[in-house]
Every structure is written in structure tokens, then in C-alpha cells.
């Protein structure tokens, strides 16, 4: 509270203050140990990856050194080297950073587009809704995967930014639909009508009245989408339609296992990346589920 003390019972009032949404989430995490550990682990990995990768140079890490091919894990190369003699550990860090950046960026961009359009469509209804929903339908009927693959093959110097762009172009639709359907239900509540009679402009009602009521579903959806988007990146790269080898990602590391020799006899190349993905996905899902429960009073543990 920003206001200075008005009267003596100010501190008492402070005490009666009921828990806000954030406090409920904190309580839920404290109660759910798995989610708490997941959160700490996830944040730890993210921080470590981003800080460590600041000292790494992508060009240096991805420089081919034929004489060092397929070194087993040892004191020089913690996790050994791949067929180009490149250090797997450094690639893993850079790859994790790239994959996380892609996942987070796609999630944020698609969320912003989806929330903005979905809110407009759901709140106003009528022709606004029609225009937005037909656009969504149009994007949905496009063969997204094929267009992405074609885009990847024709664009020179494919990198993280271009990948984020092409993915965001297609993956905002489901979020837009979700938000729209919730906004449609929400605007029928009397408090929206009440806000109108109190003279609140439409944009304020949308942002400060309707949106907070959708916040729980947005947070949950964003967390779970983050896992999905990292998965999409890795699987596309695994198939060979994602990032090139010069831009390491978790997907590129795993895609080395397409070679049966690497798959069977040289697990140090792909196993760390696979385990890291597994850990990240599990962490994100546990966190997402805890948030989901916090959003619903009936499921809450804390």
C-alpha cells in the first residue's frame, strides 16, 4: 500500500488484508514439495545455462576438430565430443540456452497476440469476433508444418530469431481461441455491465476487469505451452528441419543419434540432451500443475 498512515488503526487494517493471488500461489508451492523442487531446479538450470553461456562463443564451440572425434567423457571434455570433435558439454549449454530462448520467446509472443486478439473478439463479439475468428480459421487450415519446413529450407542463414518468427506466426491461434471463449463467458457477468454504468471505458474494462479474471488460465496455459514449444523446437530440429548444426540446440544434439553407431555405442553425445529435456519438461509440468491448482479453490492444497 502506497498511502501513508491515515489513522491509528491503519496497521490493524493491514492485518485483515486477505491473501492476494500471488500469495495463494506461494502457499501452493510451499505445500507441494515436488512443485517447489521443480521450480528451484528449473530456475537453477535456467540461470546456470544463461550465465555460463555468456562466456561461450558459438563459433568457438562449433569449430570442427577432426582429430578430437568421439572422445569419451574425460577431464578435458566433461561429456566427450561429437563426430566433429566439438565439446558436447559446451554444446549442451548453448543448446539449452537456444532451446529455452526459443520456447520462452514463442510462448510470450503467441500469448501477447492471442490474448490481445482473443480479448477483443470475446469482449466485443459481433463483427470483431467474426473477423478475428475467420482469420484464426484461415491460419488453422494452412498446413503449418509444411510451410515451416519450406521456409526453413529456402531461407538462408536460418537462426534463432527467424525460427521464433515462423513459429509464432502459426502457434498463436489456439491461445486466441482459448482466451476468446473465456472472455465471451466473462463479459456476460454483471460486473462488466456494472463497470459500464460506472463510466469505465471499454479498454479499461477489458484490461483491468476481464483480464485479471482470466489471469489464472493464462498463467497455466503459458507454463504448459512453454514445455510444448521447447518440444516442438527439438522435434523439428531432430527431424532436420530446425536449426542448423552451427546453431546448437537440444534438438541438434539429439539428432546425432540418428546415426545408429552413435545411438548404440556413443550415448554421451545425445543422452545428456535427452535427460535435460526430460528434466525441463517434467519441471515445467509440475510447476504448471501447481499453478493450475492454485487457480482453482477446490483443488488447492495450501
Amino acid at each position, binding site marked *: 500500500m502506497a498511502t501513508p498512515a*491515515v489513522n491509528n*488503526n491503519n496497521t490493524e487494517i493491514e492485518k*485483515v488484508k486477505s491473501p492476494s493471488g500471488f500469495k495463494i500461489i506461494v502457499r501452493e508451492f510451499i505445500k507441494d514439495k515436488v512443485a517447489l523442487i521443480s521450480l528451484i531446479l528449473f530456475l537453477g538450470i535456467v540461470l546456470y545455462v544463461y550465465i555460463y553461456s555468456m562466456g561461450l562463443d558459438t563459433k568457438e564451440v562449433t569449430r570442427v576438430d577432426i582429430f578430437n572425434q568421439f572422445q569419451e567423457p574425460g577431464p578435458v571434455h566433461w561429456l566427450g565430443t561429437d563426430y566433429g570433435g566439438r565439446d558436447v558439454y559446451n554444446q549442451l549449454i548453448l543448446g539449452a540456452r537456444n532451446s529455452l530462448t526459443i520456447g520462452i520467446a514463442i510462448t510470450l509472443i503467441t500469448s501477447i497476440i492471442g490474448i490481445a486478439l482473443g480479448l477483443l473478439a470475446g469482449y466485443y463479439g459481433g463483427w470483431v469476433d467474426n473477423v478475428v475468428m475467420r482469420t484464426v480459421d484461415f491460419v488453422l487450415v494452412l498446413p503449418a508444418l509444411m510451410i515451416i519446413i519450406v521456409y526453413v529450407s529456402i531461407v538462408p542463414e536460418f537462426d534463432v530469431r527467424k525460427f521464433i518468427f515462423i513459429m509464432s506466426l502459426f502457434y498463436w491461434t489456439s491461445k486466441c481461441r482459448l482466451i476468446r471463449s473465456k472472455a465471451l463467458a466473462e463479459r456476460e457477468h454483471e460486473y462488466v455491465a456494472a463497470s459500464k*454504468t460506472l463510466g469505465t471505458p471499454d479498454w479499461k474494462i477489458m484490461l483491468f476487469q476481464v483480464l485479471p479474471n482470466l489471469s489464472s488460465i493464462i498463467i497455466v496455459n503459458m507454463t504448459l505451452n512453454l514445455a510444448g514449444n521447447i518440444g516442438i523446437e527439438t522435434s523439428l530440429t531432430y527431424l532436420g528441419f530446425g536449426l542448423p548444426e552451427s546453431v546448437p540446440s537440444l534438438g541438434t544434439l539429439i539428432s546425432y543419434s540418428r546415426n545408429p553407431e552413435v545411438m548404440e555405442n556413443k550415448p554421451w553425445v545425445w543422452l545428456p540432451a535427452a535427460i535435460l529435456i526430460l528434466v525441463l519438461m517434467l519441471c515445467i509440468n509440475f510447476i504448471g500443475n501447481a499453478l493450475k491448482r492454485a487457480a482453482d479453490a477446490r483443488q488447492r492444497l495450501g
Partner: protein
Amino acid sequence: MTLLKIENLKVYYPVRGGFFRRVIDHVKAVDDISFELQPGETYGLVGESGCGKTTTGRTIIGLNRPTAGKITFNDVELTKITRRDFYKYRKDIQMIFQDPYSSLNPRKRVIDIIAEPIRNFERLSPKEERMKIMEVLEKVGLSPESIYKYPHEFSGGQRQRIGIARALTLNPKLIIADEPVSALDVSVQAQVLNFMKDIQKEFNLTYLFISHDLGIIRHMCDRIGIMYRGRLVEEGTKEEIFENPQHIYTKRLLSSIPQMNPEERLKHMAFRKEVNQEFKNNYDKYFDAEGKIFDLKPISETHSVALP
């Protein structure tokens, strides 16, 4: 001087169907009604559910668009001015909503809910704002300490008081009360109603009181309009309506009030049957060939009935 004047108000909703979703018919939610509100009085709008009374209220405050007709408030025609100009009159007309559970945003604290109109119309420092909200809360009988609570921590009656407090903060001239107590239990109803009467005297408010509960209407209102199928069937002072009902629909409504006196139960039942018989026999006298209600005709200075 008339505070609010409704003239030939019509609100139609299109029914779409067939090929290309053309308009094939209209639902006549409100079909040509006129009435006036004098400053300081309580006007009751009564009728069964679906007769258009809520639509009338929501149209006056601007939540629905009228299809035709004039709404004049303090000599300004609200139906003609643009939305931007209407903003100025928002302050003077406020609404109390029917459902205290959905009319308060569950994500907002009481202070934010009540401060919403203040933030829209007045520039107050956070400190002044807080003082004003505490003052209003005290007036509606809630403890000022509850400003940081969420709506779900209150009972239905308390929530309705928060709704009333929100409507009162701007010192409006006219309050449209859309079944303000129908979601509350009877003991709380009396509390809220008496409170509404008290503040009416204090702030010289005019109420448009929408309800289907005749007991409450009798308790609250000075003048009453009976609505049926989107039209007014009878209009008059409280005494005229309750002592001398003219239209068969009014009679039926009144005969449906349960009698408290058990000794007169049989007598009341006979009266109900009689009214029902009259309704069946003289249907044509009260409704025209299409089942439509006639226009209102004055039978005394204040009393008018829809008769041919």
C-alpha cells in the same frame, strides 16, 4: 419538474433464421411504453419474469440500445446524444444490480470496486479516496476495515450493500434498482430495503424500482406501473393499484399474493378462482384480437389502465 421521462420506448431484438441468417421476426422485449419519474419518488415497475422490466431499466442506463422512443433525463434527450456526451450523465444515473454475486468483480478488493466510479469521474489523491470510501462503507453499514477484503468474504446482504455503496459514491440523482433484493433471504431483504429508504431521504434520491415481489413494491413505492408482455397494463399510485385494480392482469397478480390469515384462506381461494374465471370469460375485453395489450387510457388523474 419531471426527472425522467420515457416516451414510446421500444426495444426489439431481431430473431434471425433461415438462409443467410436474415431477420425473420422480432422479440418485442419492450413494446411502446411511456412513464415519468418525479424527483424524490419511487416508481415501481412490476411484472412477471420476461415481461421486459429489466430491459427497460438497462435501456435507460444505456446498456441496451432502444429501437425507438425517447428517454429524457433532466430535459436532455439521452437517446439522441452520442456516447461521449452520455458520459456526463453517467454520474447522475446509477444502477443497483440484481445478483450481488456476479455484479462484483471477484478479483478486486472492496476498495477498488467502490473506487472505480471515483477514479473515472473525480481526481482524488489516494488518501482522500480512501477516506471517502470508508465514509461510504460506514454509511451502508459495513465496517471500514473491510476495504481490503475480497467480495467472496462477504455474505449476500453485505455484498449487495457494497453494490449500493458503489452506486452511491457519485451522488447520483436517479438509481435504477433492478430487483435489488431478490437474491437475498427475507430477513436481509428488509434490512437492505429499509436502508435504501433511509438513504433516499438523506440524498433525495429517485428510484426506479424493478421487482416482481408485490410485497416489496407495496413497501417501497409511491407509484406503480404493471408490465405484461413488454407493455404497461396499468399505472397508478400505490393505493390505486392495490385497492382498486382495474385490469385483469393486475387483479391476477394481486390475487396471487398469499394470505397471512389462515381463517380467510378459503375466502381467498374463492376470490382467486373468481378472478381466474373473469380472465377466461372476459379475455377479449382486455386483449385485442392478436392478444396484444391496449394502450393506456387515463381513468383518473393518476390512474390509467389499458382498456379499449
